[in-house]
């Protein structure tokens, strides 16, 4: 089993790639890997409660840990209480910790 961190910087409203990245994350999870999705920049937009769509639900349902960059949330006026269930606001230190722990990290 490997550990993967996928950093998603795009949102599913403006890029089809974001959906494909979730599919990659789910496939990695189903293959028995540990997977975390870290949403950053506009990647946090779909985790607003009420605006959260199918890709995010797919990831959460698959058991993928979904983290949202606290700085990106704050920049976009999304308070912690506005974040969809299943998504955890997190500092960018979460990325550094996983890099230092030799996770396979991709910036998408």
């Amino acid at each position, binding site marked *: 089993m490997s550990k993967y961190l996928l950093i998603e*910087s795009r949102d599913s409203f403006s890029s089809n790639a974001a959906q494909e990245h979730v599919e990659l994350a789910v496939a990695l999870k189903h293959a028995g890997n540990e997977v975390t999705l870290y949403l*950053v*920049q*506009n990647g946090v937009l779909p985790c607003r409660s009420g605006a959260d769509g199918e890709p995010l639900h797919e990831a959460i349902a698959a058991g993928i840990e979904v983290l949202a960059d606290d*700085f990106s949330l704050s920049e976009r006026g999304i308070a912690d209480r506005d974040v969809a269930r299943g998504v955890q606001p997190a*500092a*960018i*230190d979460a*990325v*550094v*910790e996983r*890099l*230092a722990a*030799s*996770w396979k*990290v991709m*910036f998408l």
Partner: protein
Amino acid sequence: MPASLTFAIMDAPFENARTVTVFRLVQAALKAGHDVNVFAYEGAVGLSFARQAAHANAVHGRDAAAENHPLPRVWIEQLLGLAGKSGRKLDWVNCGLCVDERGMGEAIEGVRRGTPADLWKMSVESVNSLSVGTR
């Protein structure tokens, strides 16, 4: 446990939020006690260009000081300063070919010129590497 981390970055300054994200990653890594290598290539060699200058904003009637336009070279200087204060290493390398293509040979102090071979060496010697490419 302190580790050595390498970041390869490609985006030119003043264009994309990825630049700020990378700066934040470098800062977080240094604060966590890690040594950091940065290999800047293509447009990213402009991040440390010494002749970046703050400017006024005539439309809003602000002079350069009031406009306080952020400059990536200043952020890099601050990251180098953070590394120095915390006793960590920040090795910032600009791809020499990319520098020459763009006429950006004047980098701030603390940034050095290198080649893709430096990226290979940094990656081999690091616990992990992250490439943040332009799209």
